[in-house]
């Protein structure tokens, strides 16, 4: 598995009333295959996730993925670390499903016909073959999230960071997307409010008020989070 290291990495943002700490300086090493991140809204868990592929750069410290500095070697890191957002609509930037996956494959495959074959194979793998030529806007929420994941996974990243990928989905699609994510060969960093998914990870971080409140085995971490959230 890849090694993700946070070396005193923290994020502050300027506000009218002074700097606000979004994520306090954090030091940890992630080597497990499935890492869950749970926490309340605004706790800093998405910021932590975004640090991992350079969507947010640390204001102090540094983040390394397999020794590559996210702030300095962002392009190389992003080739290794894929990112999936809560709302797939923002991620789908081409008119049809197959074209959106093809966009991800442009760097890997220059030949248009071959690229189309690869994209269709990717759609088939994620159960979207029948929608290859449909408008991305015509898909259901679950299908959009699957397509967004297919677009990211088409590039075969070593790590996938998924920021609340099931938040907008119904029960069946939550199960479908959750099973897909937890079954990946890649290292997965999963930010989620779905505590059942979190319990299926190998390690869970609980984020509260911009700090890692708990870091350990899933059941103990989730129990800690529930106890602290519900008093």
């Amino acid at each position, binding site marked *: 598995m890849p090694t993700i290291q946070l070396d005193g990495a923290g994020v502050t943002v300027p506000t009218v009333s002074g700097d606000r700490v979004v994520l306090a300086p954090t030091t940890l090493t992630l080597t497990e295959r499935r890492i869950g991140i749970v926490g309340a809204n605004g706790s800093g868990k998405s910021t932590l996730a975004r640090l991992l*592929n*350079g*969507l947010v750069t640390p204001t102090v410290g540094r983040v390394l993925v397999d020794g590559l500095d996210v702030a300095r070697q*962002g*392009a190389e890191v*992003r*080739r290794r670390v*894929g*990112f999936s*957002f809560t*709302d797939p*609509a*923002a*991620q789908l*930037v*081409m*008119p*049809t499903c197959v*074209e959106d996956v*093809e*966009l*991800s494959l*442009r*760097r890997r495959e220059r030949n*248009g016909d071959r*690229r*189309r074959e690869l994209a269709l194979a990717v759609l088939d793998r994620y159960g979207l073959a029948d929608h290859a*030529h449909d*408008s991305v*806007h*015509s898909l259901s929420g679950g299908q959009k999230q699957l397509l967004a994941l297919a*677009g*990211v996974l088409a*590039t075969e990243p070593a790590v996938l960071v998924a920021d609340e990928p099931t938040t907008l989905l119904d029960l069946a699609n939550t199960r479908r997307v959750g099973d897909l994510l937890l079954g990946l060969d890649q290292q997965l960093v999963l930010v989620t409010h779905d505590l059942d998914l979190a319990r299926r990870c190998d390690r869970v971080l609980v984020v509260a008020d911009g700090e890692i409140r708990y870091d350990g085995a899933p059941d103990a971490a989730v129990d800690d989070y529930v106890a602290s959230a519900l008093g």
Partner: protein
Amino acid sequence: MSNLLLIGVHQPGTTVLHRLPVGVKMAGLAAYSLSVVLVRSATWSWVFLALALLAALVGRVRLRTLARAARSVLLVALVVSALQWWLYGLPKAVETFVDLLALALAAVVLTATTAVNAILDAIVRWLGPLRRFGAQPERVALTFSLALQAIPGTLALALETRDAARARGLGRHPRAFLTPFVVRVVARAHETGDALQARGLGD
């Protein structure tokens, strides 16, 4: 889903128009558009509209897509034509209306018979020689594709915003629609930028 969102969507096929090289189609559309704008004749306007419909027939573009494209441009065409009527009279207004309709339909025929990635490949190929002067063809091509996708994407946001305003009983209040719509378009632009960065497409 609104059928307006089908605009710009590629319809796979094997017609002559589908098989024509992208460059020929784009050059053809450019020449056609210039002719529509430069040739000032009511008769020719109808001829150009007929040509666009003929191209749609040859490319077997779905009638529904054409009708929706026409509808989407109708409001703009009506406003512009009304202005022309006021300034120059009815014949000029009709000519302008038919010209705008013909241009919209011709553009739909191009996008319906050409995969966006084929257009991107062509742009990258054409701009390749400019790399030595610092041009980044992949970025230009990506910008082009985003512009294409922005049309149905923005329409989707408009429809969602309209529905949200209606749900709060503010359906006919312009500010209840325009302010959140603009905010959502800007927010979506930021999100799309993040998504592109996350996919390494701007690197």
